[in-house]
């Protein structure tokens, strides 16, 4: 969190409205956030507070209604669709809340796909990289299976492997442990933490899980489309405990 560094994600006064027919649903209302390279940040908040919406904006899969979203120093509003796609491919890894695997491809092929799109590695290198990640998420023996032959937790891990396989600078994870038992969840968090420490990968993940929040070096608390505060994980835990008492 060195002050001299420029942020990898910089969000300024961002609002996001969804329109459902004539009704406008405000999902984010004036959000400011800066995330610096190497940070391991958790976004916490009740259901419907806008966590997924925020991650979608950072991940360049959606556009803000107003405000500025900059990723890797680039104002996403000013990028062409092609440049945005390249940003998603080369800079960002996204673990979606609902996995979103390609059903007709095997586990191996799903994880390999971003590498194919990148066209940087040859076949052998791709295989090494994919197998290494599948080992790490504990799915090496399932490489030939199709997503529909896996459990929810296993699919989640394939999604994790796919997001990490390109070694992106920035990994966005929408409730990455929600479908996992605590052991596997812990394992995935350890893996992310390891990447964070070894490679300096920036992680932004949303979660409900206090244990997961423990690992974050900062917790951004979101409520009703607004950022309440940005605190250390210990403070967040205390706040949550206080909130629980308050109820």
């Amino acid at each position, binding site marked *: 969190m060195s002050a001299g560094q420029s942020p990898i994600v910089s969000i300024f006064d961002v609002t996001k409205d969804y329109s459902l027919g004539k009704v406008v649903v405000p999902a984010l209302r004036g959000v400011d956030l800066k995330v610096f390279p190497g940070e391991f940040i958790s976004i916490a908040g009740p259901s419907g507070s806008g966590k997924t919406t925020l991650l979608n904006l950072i991940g360049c899969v959606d556009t803000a209604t107003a405000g500025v979203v900059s990723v890797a120093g680039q104002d996403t509003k000013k990028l062409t669709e092609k440049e945005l*796609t390249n940003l998603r*491919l080369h800079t960002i890894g*996204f673990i979606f809340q609902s996995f*979103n695997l390609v059903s*007709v*491809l095997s586990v191996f092929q799903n994880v390999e*796909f*971003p590498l194919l*799109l990148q066209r940087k590695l040859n076949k052998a290198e791709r295989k090494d990289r994919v197998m290494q990640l599948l080992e790490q998420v504990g799915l090496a023996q399932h490489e030939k299976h199709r997503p529909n032959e896996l459990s929810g937790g296993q699919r989640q891990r394939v999604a994790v492997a796919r997001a990490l396989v390109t070694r992106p600078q920035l990994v966005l994870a929408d409730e990455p442990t929600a479908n996992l038992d605590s052991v596997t969840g812990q394992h995935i968090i350890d893996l992310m933490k390891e990447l964070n420490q070894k490679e300096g990968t920036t992680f932004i993940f949303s979660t409900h899980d206090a244990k997961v929040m423990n690992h974050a070096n900062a917790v951004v608390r979101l409520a009703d489309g607004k950022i309440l505060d940005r605190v250390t994980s210990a403070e967040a835990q205390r706040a949550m405990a206080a909130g629980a008492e308050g109820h």
Partner: protein
Amino acid sequence: MFQLFLIAFRNLGTHRRRTLLLGGAIAGVTALLVILQGLSSGMQESMLRSATTLMTGHVNVGGFYKLAAGQSAPVVTSAPKVMELIHKEVPELDYAVQRGRGWAKVVSETGSVQAGIGGIDVSTETGFRKVLQIREGTLDGLNEPNTLLVFQQQAEKLGVKVGDTVTIVAPTMRGINNTVDVRVVAIAANVGMLSSFNVYVPSATLRSLYRLKDDTTGAIFLYLKDLKQVPAVQARLRQTLAAAGYELMDNDPRAFWMKFDTVNREAWTGQKLDITNWEDEISFVKWTVTALNILSGLLISILLVIICVGIMNTLWIAIRERTREIGTLRAIGMQRSRVVWMFLLEALTLGSLGTLVGAGLGLVVCTLVNAAQIAVPKVVAVFILSETLNLAVSPKVILGSMLFITACTTAISLIPSFLAARLKPVTAMHHIG
């Protein structure tokens, strides 16, 4: 790229029912297209073959000989010389025959028919053997003098069988009727309307009927290897015949029997040659061909529109179902253009496989129909100049149909895939299909 193929291919496999439906539709249209085109060009082929063999060459050197104003005969004098010139000047020639022309009444004991009399040297008329089906007697019977070939329809009207004798009564330009007795040696199966206004006798018989010299004939019929060469040959013949000193009539695209009035009114006497082509002589065939073309073109267009709409619809559904997948692929960094490519490949694969099956199917149907010798209704036979259905199958048409349908389905699939690729990744991902 390989991965794109893989996804495309797997998708086809995963959605087996839709793939089969769509592929089946594509195969069906291709087969129909092949069959319809085969039907249309088959009819044209047999029509042209029958009509040109029996009534006109591809190119004709005919003409008129005039004794005096008002007295003209449709003949070519010194035919062997002209024939010699033709053989020298027309390398495109398949074969050439001389054909006597007359118009007379054939009278039997119980009836009579009015008909054009063709004077033929049956040994040189190679086309006759392909076009005519002899139901009674033989074609070779016409090698003997004073013999006659009639069609079934005429034989019935005259009440004659092979071996019976009939009288041909021909008015001449001198105003008297010449007659000759001929023996029926062959009765041919009807060839549509042609069988009501043509009979054939040996050249010598026709000459004796009209008291013509041995080197005189009605016209010389040229059969070319390729119909496309007709205009070139026609033009060349005009030049060379004129250069060789023959008098030529002005080009007049009408049948010879429509020109008597014009010729009689003109002042010249002696021999003039007239060069025409098959379209001039049998314009009714041309009209039938045109009508047939328009009809089949219309039918095929309607069919294609219906099928295109169907295929488009199915592809739309397919792409809507897969919008989530498109969203995911776009979200992990797949460019729009590659998404479109993926669908293109899918459509291309489906299209080429479907059309391949369809072409095979069409081919089988055409072959079966041809082998079955299916009889057509009389009204149809009158126009297509054939009693059985004949479907032409040419590799060009089949390949053309395949390419066309594949191109159509691929082009159609572009629209929905473009639209799907245009969606914001998140919109596509959350799409409920």
